[in-house]
Every structure is written in structure tokens, then in C-alpha cells.
């Protein structure tokens, strides 16, 4: 046989609760207990409120650039819901809902975007990494974290989040390839939200699906409706099981949409069709879950009011904590560089306000001390 087929495969796409309220009872059965669905819904409401408040903080000059999460809450939340405490969640910057679900204090995220490294300190025992600013680099850390757990014989899993744009970076490829070839318990969770700032996802991947990236590595791969919490949980459960049991990675493409601008520094009207945005408004994961809960009589207007009041209260306390924190000391940025501060760095630190280049003038052999007048300036 001179031409023979040596490989074939297919990509499947999963949707359980669609935007019209259809719920696939077979796939959805027992997936998430009702009381958890309620909790998850409430959590999404609180996260959405934080998102709105953060946006306003930026607009009123009380915070730097902020990337809205709006419309993408179901992805990271679904993943976090399935992960166990020993697992690692290695995110990008649009995963507030998942991070908060795992226990990251909400003010940490605000502090980060307020330009304060203290927002990146991770509470002990919480297996998350800080917001990743450089696109596409964090997946390798997840691969290494997954590897470290396998190395120690633990059954932990590392789940990493990234966007459609990030899959164009070489590091994505290397991370997936390491995980597949070294048999590592890693989940590659791609949030395909249609855009990388102004660049549409077809420029990142002109193939019919992003999910087929996984085929290159012989990795199990699946596409899900990323605005469908149930579908996300469904895919995550399979992926986590595969990772824990067989140390095999999975690629998940979650099809979702960035309802807001890329960040507050962006103006998406420059490059997006308003009709496209409009069409996705109806697919909002929060609307969808609320309708589902109401249909099951698990939710009503009073509960909605209550959660909104709760969200308001919670978030205003969070904002207060973030804003009331003492200003960092002006030498703060020296102190976590190394466990033991190198001598020259200590001199720079200790004299940064009294000497020009942070060098003790006394060190300049024979140099006269600057006149007092100048020091005082």
C-alpha cells in the first residue's frame, strides 16, 4: 500500500447548558450538585461586581490598567471548582473567578493592578501563581509544577490558563510538548475569547479549531462552550482524572468571548463590530446560569437582590482594604530580590535617598561629603 493512513483523529465539542436554556440531561447528570450550582452562581455575581468596580476605579484614576473579566467567569471558575487544594492553578490575568474560588484574597488582585507587588504575595498553602503579564510564558511553569508533583509521587495536577493569542508563542508549544512527551499531569486550558487585543483569533490560528493544537502532541484534546459552566466542569473532570491517574496532559479549548475592552487602556470599538459584541451578550455565562437556576426553582428575584447586596458590601470592603493599605516603604523593592542581599545592593538601598546613585559617598575614597544643603534637598 503505497499511500496508507497512519493516523486519524477527530475533535469533539461539548455543550451542556446552551444559551437558549437547553440542558443536556445525560451529560449534565450529577455533574454539579444543585447547592454547588447556586454557590458557583453567587460567586460569579460577586466576581462580576468586583470587575465592574475595578473598571470604575481605573476610570476614576484610583487604579492603573485593568483587564475586564466580564463574560469569561465560567471558565476559570469551572476549572477551580474541579481542582483539589493540592493542585496548582497557573493563570494569566482574566481568571479572577477561579482564583477567588480557590481562596485568593480579592484585594490581592486589586493591589496588583494598583501597581503594588504586595498583591502578588501568595497565602501559604494556596497553590496559585501570580498574574502573568508576559503572554504565553506561564504554561511552562505549570509543566514544571506538574512534573514536581509527579516526581514526588503526589497525585497533584497543574492546570494552566491562557488565551488564544498565547497559543502563538513558542513557549506554549514547548510546554505542551514537554508535558506530552514526559507524561506530565498538566491541563492546558485555552480561553479562546476571539481576540488578542485587536487581533482576531483567526490570525493566531487559521485552523478550524484551536483544540487541534493538542493533536500535534498526541494529547487528548477537546473543545467546550466556555460560557457553559457545566461543559467546562465536564471537560475538566475528564482532564483531571487523566492527569491524576495516567499523568497525561489534556488540551481544552473553551470558546468564549471578551465582552469588554482588552484592558482599560484599550478601545475595542476601533476594531470590533458592535453586532459581534451584541451577539455574545446573550451568551453571558451569568445570564445563562441564572435562567437555569430559576427554571429549577433554585433562584428568584429576592435571592438576586440579596446576592447583589452582599456583593456590594463585600467588594466595597475589599476596595477599602486595598486602598487603605500603607504606602510601601520606598526601599521595598530591594528587600525580596535575594534571600541574602548582596553588599552592593544593600549600599544602594541604604543610601538611595542620601546619595546620588545609591552609593555611599564615604565609599568614594577621598570624596568629600556633599554639603549639608544638598543632602537636605
Amino acid at each position, binding site marked *: 500500500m503505497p499511500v496508507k493512513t497512519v493516523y486519524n483523529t477527530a475533535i469533539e465539542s461539548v455543550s451542556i447548558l446552551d444559551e437558549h436554556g437547553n440542558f443536556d440531561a445525560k451529560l449534565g447528570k450529577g455533574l454539579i450538585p444543585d447547592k454547588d450550582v447556586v454557590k458557583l452562581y453567587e460567586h460569579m455575581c460577586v466576581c462580576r461586581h468586583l470587575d465592574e468596580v475595578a473598571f470604575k476605579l481605573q476610570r476614576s484614576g484610583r487604579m*492603573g490598567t485593568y483587564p475586564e473579566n466580564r463574560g469569561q467567569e465560567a471558565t476559570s471558575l469551572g476549572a477551580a471548582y474541579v481542582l483539589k487544594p493540592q493542585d496548582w492553578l497557573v493563570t494569566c490575568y482574566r481568571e479572577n473567578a477561579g482564583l477567588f474560588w480557590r481562596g485568593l484574597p480579592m484585594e490581592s488582585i486589586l493591589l496588583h493592578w494598583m501597581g503594588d507587588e504586595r498583591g502578588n504575595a501568595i497565602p501559604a498553602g494556596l497553590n496559585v501563581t501570580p498574574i502573568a503579564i508576559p503572554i504565553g510564558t506561564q504554561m511552562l511553569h505549570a509543566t514544571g509544577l506538574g512534573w514536581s508533583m509527579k516526581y514526588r509521587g503526589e497525585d497533584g495536577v497543574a492546570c494552566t490558563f491562557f488565551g488564544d493569542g498565547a497559543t502563538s508563542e513558542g513557549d506554549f508549544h514547548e510546554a505542551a510538548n514537554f508535558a506530552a512527551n514526559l507524561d506530565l499531569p498538566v491541563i492546558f486550558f485555552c480561553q479562546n475569547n476571539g481576540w488578542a487585543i*485587536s*487581533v482576531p483569533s483567526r490570525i493566531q490560528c487559521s485552523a478550524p479549531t484551536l483544540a487541534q493544537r493538542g493533536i500535534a502532541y498526541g494529547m487528548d484534546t477537546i473543545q467546550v462552550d466556555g460560557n457553559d459552566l457545566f461543559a467546562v466542569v465536564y471537560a475538566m473532570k475528564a482532564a483531571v482524572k487523566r492527569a491524576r491517574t495516567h499523568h497525561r496532559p489534556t488540551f481544552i479549548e473553551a470558546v468564549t468571548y471578551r465582552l469588554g475592552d482588552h484592558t482599560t487602556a484599550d478601545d475595542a470599538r476601533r476594531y470590533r463590530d458592535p453586532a459581534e459584541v451584541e451577539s455574545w451578550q446573550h451568551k453571558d455565562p451569568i445570564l445563562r446560569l441564572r435562567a437555569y437556576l430559576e427554571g429549577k426553582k433554585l433562584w428568584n428575584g429576592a435571592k438576586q437582590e440579596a446576592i447583589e447586596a452582599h456583593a456590594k458590601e463585600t467588594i466595597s470592603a475589599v476596595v477599602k482594604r486595598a486602598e487603605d493599605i500603607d504606602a510601601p516603604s520606598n526601599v521595598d523593592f530591594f528587600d525580596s530580590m535575594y534571600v541574602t542581599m548582596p553588599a552592593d545592593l544593600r549600599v544602594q538601598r541604604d543610601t538611595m535617598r542620601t546619595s546620588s*546613585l545609591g552609593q555611599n*559617598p564615604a565609599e568614594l575614597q577621598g570624596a568629600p561629603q556633599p554639603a549639608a544643603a544638598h543632602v537636605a534637598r
Partner: protein
Amino acid sequence: MANLTLVQAINLALIQEMEKDDRVLILGEDVGRNGGVFRVTEGLHQRFGDARVVDTPLAESGIIGTAIGLAMGGLRPVPEIQFEGFLGPAYDQITTHAARFRTRTRGTLTCPLTIRVPVGGGIHAPELHSDSPESIYAHTPGLKVVMPSSPYDAKGLLISAIRDPDPVIFFEPKRIYRAFREEVPEDEYTVPIGEARVVTEGEEMTMISWGASVIQCMNAIEASGRSIELVDLRTIYPLDIETIARSVRKTGRAVIVHEAPKTCGLGAEIATLIMEHCFLQLEAPVQRVTGFDTVMPYYKLELEYLPDETRIGRAIEETAAY
């Protein structure tokens, strides 16, 4: 003449070179319809179309590596890297290939490309949006490295860079993208690569800086009330040591100001060159006012990190008093 910001001057240079030479094309992230995140390429996509202003996949090594291929294929690509913090993934293609193809092939395959990169701190941006890696590239033989500090120089240097037959990294100090305007001729003109500019003449000491720090230096000099000769490098490599040495031989004292960390920053090279060229005229050690040997802090503290008037002023006094 038009009264332009630095961003506008660069935009104008791009338009004029693209009009003049259809080998010039722009590629990068968000450079197309969006006009770049700083709007430096605003209007170009509309004007020159899809083929000449190209939004690429999000991959910096890919942008520079394909630009190298474009250049070897006879074009004059002007890739944009969105922030200097994202030069990292392209570091290998820049240093291993762009910088080496000419000598590797004895001039038969060359890389006339101009890599545009916003650089430096002071704009309250997130992490990795405020660094100053110029000495890394100055240490890489085969490259030219340029950093204007004014709209006039920006336009003239960018035109020189695009026409240069060798690879040029064109650093754009983002802090002063829109900080002030300057008269910029509408006609094309060039500012030669490799020539520093004496901004103000002076007798007591020489101050050397480049990019956005030049503005800080001007303010500090004015505040000091002293007669200080300010040299704006404009080109990082090849370095115009002649202009610097001429000044220091006259003044006997020198202060260098830059945003990058101190250790192995360009300040060290300049200080050493001054010692080599002006040893017997030096009356005080050359002072460096630089970023610290730490990671640039998040923006709450970035102004503590960046050399400011106070720190520069103190260096002036220390150097004068020595």
C-alpha cells in the same frame, strides 16, 4: 514645519518612508487596524493596506525571525515589538541571526531591518512594561542601537534607521511619546546614526544621557544653576565617544544618567571610555545616576527607581564638590 509629539514624528517618518520605498513594510502585534497600542502606526493600515501593515500572530520571535527572512529577501521590514519587556522571546533571533547574518555570509545575506520598541519607565504601566535593556543590545556586535529624546531626532533617526543597510534597534522612550511637541520639518531629513548631540554647552561638568532621562537632566541642570554641558547620545551603538571625550577634556567632570540597572549598564561603558580617553583631565570619578540593581518595581514605586531631578542634582553637587 509642524508642531509634533514624538509619536507623531515617528508616524510621519513611517508614512514618508513607506510612500518613498515600497520595500518598506510594517509587521507586529496590533499595528494594523488598531494603529499600535501607542497609536504609533495610526492610519497606516488604512493608507497602505493589508499587505504593507500586517498584524501578525502573537509571537515576538516569529515577528523578528520572519522580518529577518523578509530583509534577506530584499525588503525593508520595520517590525514593532509592543514593549521592551517582550523583546525577551525575540532575543535569540536578534542576537543569533539579525546581528550575525552579514558577517556570517560575508555580506551576501544581510538584514536591513528596523526593530521599533517602546522603552523605559514612568508611565504607570504593569510589570515588564518599563525596562531599559539598551546595554544588552549594545553588547551584541552587529547591531546598531538608537534612542531619540525629541520629536525632531526621532523622525530623522528613524529615517536613517530604515535606510540603514544593517539591523537597527530603534528604542522609543514611551514616557515622552506625548510629553511635549517640537517643530519638525514636514520634508524628509535624516539625523545620522552615531552622532551625539550637545544639548546645552557648559564648563563645569559634562552630563551624558539618552532617551527620556534627557528631560530629567535638563531640569536638574536648570535647578542646579551650574554651567553643565549636556550630551544626548541619540545613538547607543556606535557610541559617539568623540563628542563625549571632547566635552570631558574641557570640563574634567562627568555624570551619566540612565534608567537601566547600574551593574553592566551602558553607564559603565561610557565611564570606562571616559577614563580611557580623558584620564589625565579627570578631576573627579565619573558618577552614575541609574536605576538600581533590582527589578523595576511595580508602578507605585517606579518614581523611586527612576533617576529624578533630586538624585541627578545630588550627583551634580557631589561631582562638583569632589
